[in-house]
């Protein structure tokens, strides 16, 4: 059985697609057969970040509606041969994702893949609900700021009440916190929440901290998952996160210089 992992956040622009691309690439590079599905119907981005936008013929919605087979729609990554991308449609509506249709596709993928990564759209509407519904695990991507943390909290509540696991009364969806765009200097100046602040509020295990970096922007413009930038902080941070996802113990990095967080400054007069 495949592990089904949703990458979600509630808030937009926090790095869900970047994370989906890097986590799936990282899993595949370790030899696990991995597929990453773009659930953001109408705002197709994943194929750009994976640099396969010119190879899209059929998409997720075509498969759901029976217009193409899964094998016709899956795109094999050119860099990592155990990685596949299931792109989404740019022209359809989110409602094209039906619960039954998504289930059929996920079941079929489960037969051959080790990991299914679901790249969720922002918000808590239909597309986001479909992306998280079948998940076994969730990577909650959060930026170190109050509104992003609030939205992540909302998504965590939905995972624990509206997912298939919740509805069936099975073990709850396993939650991982991934803090992205982290800047220790700005944390020190009290402009950002610290890792400790976010962990304290959300109360879920920390999968990793991805430092704010120009490399992330550059690589996504080039269609390169940032995890392949192995020299960069952000690339290494994603590699750590993948290792932890697979059960390895790795010390947290890239969160240094943290002395006083936003909250302690605000409220204790730091």
């Amino acid at each position, binding site marked *: 059985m495949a592990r089904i992992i949703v990458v979600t956040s509630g808030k937009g622009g926090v790095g869900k697609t970047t994370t989906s691309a890097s986590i799936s690439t990282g899993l595949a590079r370790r030899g696990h057969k991995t597929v990453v599905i773009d659930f953001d119907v109408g705002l197709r981005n994943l194929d750009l970040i994976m640099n396969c936008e010119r190879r899209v013929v059929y998409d997720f919605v075509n498969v759901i509606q029976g217009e193409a087979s899964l094998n016709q729609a899956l795109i094999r990554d050119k860099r990592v041969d155990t990685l596949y991308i299931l792109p989404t449609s740019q022209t359809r509506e989110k409602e094209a994702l039906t619960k039954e249709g998504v289930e059929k596709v996920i079941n079929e993928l489960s037969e051959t893949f080790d990991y299914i990564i679901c790249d969720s759209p922002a918000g808590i509407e239909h597309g986001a609900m479909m992306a998280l519904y079948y998940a076994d695990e969730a990577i909650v991507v959060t930026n170190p700021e109050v509104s992003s943390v*609030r939205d992540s909290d909302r998504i965590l*509540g*939905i995972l*624990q009440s509206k997912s298939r696991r919740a509805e069936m009364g099975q073990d709850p969806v396993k939650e991982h916190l991934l803090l992205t765009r982290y800047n220790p200097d700005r944390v020190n100046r009290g402009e950002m929440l610290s890792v400790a602040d976010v962990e304290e*509020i959300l*109360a879920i295990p920390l999968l990793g901290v991805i430092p704010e970096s120009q490399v992330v922007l550059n690589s996504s413009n080039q269609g390169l998952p940032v995890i392949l930038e192995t020299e960069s902080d952000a690339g290494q941070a994603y590699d750590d996160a993948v290792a932890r996802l697979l059960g390895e113990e790795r010390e947290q990095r890239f969160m240094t210089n943290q002395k006083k967080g936003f909250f302690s400054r605000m409220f204790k007069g730091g």
Partner: protein
Amino acid sequence: MSDTATSGVKHGFQLRSASVSMTALELYYFDDDEFEETLRQKINQAPGFFRDIPLIISLEKYEGLSTELDFFKIIGTCRRNNIHVIGVRGGNDDQRRLARGAALALMPGTGQRDRAHDADAAPEKAVELPVSPTPTAASKTTTDAPPARIISHPVRSGQQIHAPEGDLIILAPVQAGAEVLAAGNIHIYGPLRGRALAGIHGAESARIFCQSLEAELVSIAGHYKISEDLQDNGWRSAVQIQLKDDLLVVTPLDKA
């Protein structure tokens, strides 16, 4: 669903689903005089609580004869005591027909099993009950305090946890944007960052306890304070909140 949404015509009203917690009277058998006496005793225990409340007659544990069920007498007795009977829950077809005749609403039973069949299947039960007569109805409700609802996971933004009868105990944070409500007390072994409403049916003795007061709103029996008014006293520390002379009072737990 789409016709009202798309037509754009504004109607005089809109139907919405609503859930309201109500008191159910679990009827075991019906004897007119005894019914009124037991009812009066109950009301005397908490006159404020019972005044003008809606009431459901639950027939799921009714063991008497259907012919003894006189809904007009039940309604009349309740009316004399300022209680409004609005419907019945459960019961067999005959009983429900009688209730309908008395203009009562019919609600599905929680057990889903037909009492008539149940009695057939287990006749010894039906015989057994009359041996312990009057006290059953009275003592059942007084000694069994409603159990507390215990929640051990964080209550997240957008979630609502409701304890319609007793206390609510939460062994985790209540996050900003979350709401917890209880008829009785609310205990939070963690920070309270969202809203907490205790004594929602008017119990003024209800209290709220939390390990760190960071709430958006706290309310006891309808008296509330918002975050702005909570900053000066006990903010971000362990407190209890209670109602004294119609005022919400926040007391640090170490000085309690």
